[in-house]
């Protein structure tokens, strides 16, 4: 973990701060690993050919895996904080074996409760937003 970029206290955070970008591993091997644990082994997630035949651009990353990836990004940024809420909208499929980029930025601060809200996005290689949402992080 990059300690230089991590936050430990509420007062270290400023409105507009950007979280360090993450380029997650959404390879077939990792998606299958996720699927084995969660039971999400349906061809939609694990078979490019069948997924394309059904009209999808390829096998797709499960939405809840995308969500978990975003939570992990927050934890890298603020290892001692707690994610109180994560709210993600799955706008478009994220393709397995692609190279997406996860980003976050602080867009609200609550001094009384020492929580921050973070805008979250996962974009594909073309820069199109596939997943977006927000999280509330407590310090």
């Amino acid at each position, binding site marked *: *973990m990059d300690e230089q970029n991590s936050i430990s206290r509420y007062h270290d955070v400023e409105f507009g701060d950007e979280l360090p970008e*993450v380029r*997650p*591993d959404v390879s077939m091997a*990792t*998606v299958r*690993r*996720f699927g*084995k*644990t*969660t*039971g999400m082994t349906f061809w939609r997630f694990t078979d490019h050919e069948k997924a394309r035949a059904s009209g999808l651009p390829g096998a797709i990353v499960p*939405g*809840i*895996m995308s*969500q*978990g*990836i975003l*939570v*992990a*990004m927050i*934890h*890298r940024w603020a*290892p001692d904080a*707690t*994610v*109180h*809420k*994560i*709210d*993600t*909208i*799955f706008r*478009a499929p994220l393709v397995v074996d692609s190279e997406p980029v996860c980003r976050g930025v602080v867009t609200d601060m609550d001094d009384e409760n020492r929580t921050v809200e973070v805008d979250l996005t996962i974009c594909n290689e073309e820069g199109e937003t596939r997943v977006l*949402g927000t999280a509330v992080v407590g310090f």
Partner: protein
Amino acid sequence: MDIAELKQKWAGQTFDTVSFEVDGSELVEFALACGETLPRYTDRSDDDFQAVPSYTSRYHGRRQLPEGFPVDMEQSFDGGKCVEWQAPIRPGDTLIGRSRIHDIFEKTGRSGGMMFIVHRMEFTNQRDELVSIVDWKMIQKLG
């Protein structure tokens, strides 16, 4: 189909209750597959070892919708999930998940006309403490 009527009739009541045993090795695998690196989520020997906050999004009840719900959701897709973490979930916990329909509405988007059903699942542990709330938007194309 009258969406307002559908909502009035079906929203609010618990239609499914199911229990889950929390398995430590599954907690680790879930976390690692999502790229988690913190020991409290990836190392079973950590004093504070627990599920990642969004873990409960993986659980499903015995049915997605109440018995007799008039819409076939076989072709539905996942529009998004919201997880509200309330308390740590530890290996060995027994979670009770209670499901209800929280909201129903319609809108149009890239897929044309769609019905959104917000399925809410509330999780309590063996001490009857609320640990998580998951809202799941199920989307069914209309027409």
